[in-house]
């Protein structure tokens, strides 16, 4: 059993492996883009590129909070339904008060409260996260449909709409929001004690607890952040499509999960980055955008996303097995 030299070599190999993995993903995006540019005249037009960026920003915002959850080896299946409820409540408040600021506060607060509730279910009631958030998804969907009763709220102040459809120096506003949260998320995860504790919980919850990490509080934190980010994403959607319905965000849960997993965050916790999720979100958006441009019926999208998720997790499982 003379494995000592291997063990010394592992960290360096793992690091270069991570870099390679990231390069592979960027390469995948580039190859896909080249293929789509060849197949469709529209792909490389300024309009479509801005559209892809805007959609990537939206998906990234939902997926960034989810990344923290998955880093702890948890899952948040309620984000899409959370977007719907937060968005509809925010829309009502904007309509009632005429104040976009109150609407923004309502949307984020609603998302945050839902996320906190998820955190409590997972920690205090010790329900496995995928079951707790799955149940939450249906509860939120039920409440939203009941609240909206099939109605649509539309027509928001133009100042608010800038958040989703405005431009600054020719770049869509959501992209700036994305960059800000990318910076915050990456710094938080890599450079703060709390961020490192989140990785520790995902890698080995028992060891984390023994070394003094307040596991429950950090878990509540990641679910709350995930919820708040869903609330924020709902505002961007409202501002962009200028209306709110009971089913907004519903079809975004699977792509957001796929973005995190394709971005290299392990479903088993403890490894991955927020920046990786950005690449994942870009890849997913390019795939879905490409399907649209090639005029593939949108019915194929959940199917494609399902297959992408399974592939990503399969690669993850294989990588881990080789690592062991």
């Amino acid at each position, binding site marked *: 059993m003379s494995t000592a030299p291997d063990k010394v070599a592992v960290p360096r190999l793992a690091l270069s492996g991570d870099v390679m993995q990231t390069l592979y993903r960027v390469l995948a995006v580039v190859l896909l883009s080249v293929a789509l540019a060849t197949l469709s005249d529209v792909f490389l037009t300024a309009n479509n590129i801005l559209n892809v960026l805007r959609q990537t920003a939206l998906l990234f915002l939902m997926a960034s909070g989810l990344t923290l959850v998955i880093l702890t080896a948890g899952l948040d299946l309620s984000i899409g339904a959370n977007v719907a409820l937060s968005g509809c409540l925010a829309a009502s408040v904007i309509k009632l008060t005429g104040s976009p600021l109150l609407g923004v506060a309502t949307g984020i607060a609603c998302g945050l409260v839902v996320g906190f509730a998820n955190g409590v279910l997972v920690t205090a009631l*010790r329900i496995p996260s995928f079951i707790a958030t799955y149940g939450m998804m249906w*509860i939120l969907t*039920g409440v939203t449909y009941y609240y909206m009763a099939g109605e649509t709220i539309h027509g928001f102040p133009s100042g608010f709409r800038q958040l989703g459809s405005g431009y600054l120096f020719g770049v869509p506003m959501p992209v700036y929001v994305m960059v800000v949260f990318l910076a915050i998320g990456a710094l938080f995860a890599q450079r703060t004690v709390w961020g490192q504790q989140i990785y520790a919980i995902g890698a080995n919850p028992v060891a984390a607890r023994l070394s003094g990490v307040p596991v429950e509080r950090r878990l509540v934190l990641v679910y709350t952040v995930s919820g708040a980010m869903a609330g924020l994403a709902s505002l961007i959607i409202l501002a962009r499509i200028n209306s709110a319905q009971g089913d907004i965000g519903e079809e975004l849960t*699977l792509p957001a*999960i796929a973005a995190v997993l394709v971005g290299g965050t392990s479903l088993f916790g403890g490894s991955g980055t927020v920046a990786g999720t950005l690449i994942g979100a870009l890849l997913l958006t390019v795939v879905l955008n490409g399907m649209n441009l090639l005029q593939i019926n949108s019915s194929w999208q*959940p199917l494609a996303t399902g*297959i992408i998720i399974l592939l990503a997790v399969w690669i993850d499982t294989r990588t881990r097995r080789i690592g062991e």
Partner: protein
Amino acid sequence: MSTHTLVSAQLARVPGVAIALIALCGIFAVTSPGFATPANIANILTQSTILLLLALPMTLIIMTEGLDLSIGAVLTFSSIVLAITALATGSPALAFLAALAVGLCFGLANGVLIAVFDIPPFITTLGTLGIAQGLSLVVTDGQSVVGIPRSIEAIYSGTAAGIPLPIILAALAYALTHTLLYHTRFGTYVFALGGNREALKVAGISVRGMLIRVYVFGGLMAGFAALLMTARLNSAHPTAGIGMEFDAIAAIAVGGTSFERGNGWLLGTLLGVLTVGVLRNGLNLLAVPSSAQVACIGALVIIALFIDGLRGEQ
């Protein structure tokens, strides 16, 4: 944990779900005059049969510390294939076989991905949920499949010796699952898969083979349930079964099966299914929209798990 404490822990749960069921019946009997009538009770039982067919295999799956989120979408796709086959061939038997085949394929895919590829159950079945849902939409182009033979509808509305056919079929399914779980070696392995997987390996049992069988059973039952659902709606619709897995998981949670350690209880699932059925029926009579019903079921589950958690701490 010894067998004795396991048994007493389960006996301690009997009142839980039974009290919930009786309490709900009491509340609805008082609040809505139409509830406690023989016709409505028969209605509740008949409507609960589809859910029971899904909840029975799901109980076994959850006992292996697994989960099947795809079962509602597989039910939907099976129902669509059943309707399309019936339209194309005119043969209900062939259509039923086609539905079973769809269920078998998805169950097998779930089982292989989980057992052989080591992909966690909830993410596997989330992926296959997307696939089954996507296929349902693609095949139907979002439209209902209508005009299926009358003989299929008779399976839901017919009676034998005065008892509705769906209830007889569901009772048979319950008896079959009960026998499988409590009176065969397969059942013993299911218990071990959740609580004591290492012991199975030591005993030389193929854990992979057993897991695959459990998910195949789930797929087949979804195909079976598709027959009742198509017969009930007299058509197939690409969103008809979406979310049924939520009702099934809710019924199992209320019925006292634990999501950890493989503590399952089939009779609890039956009572849980009836509880969800009574809740939905009662809320229907009170004209509560189905969206709000979903929220009520969720609340019921949280209360049940909360009480379970309190009991666990004692």
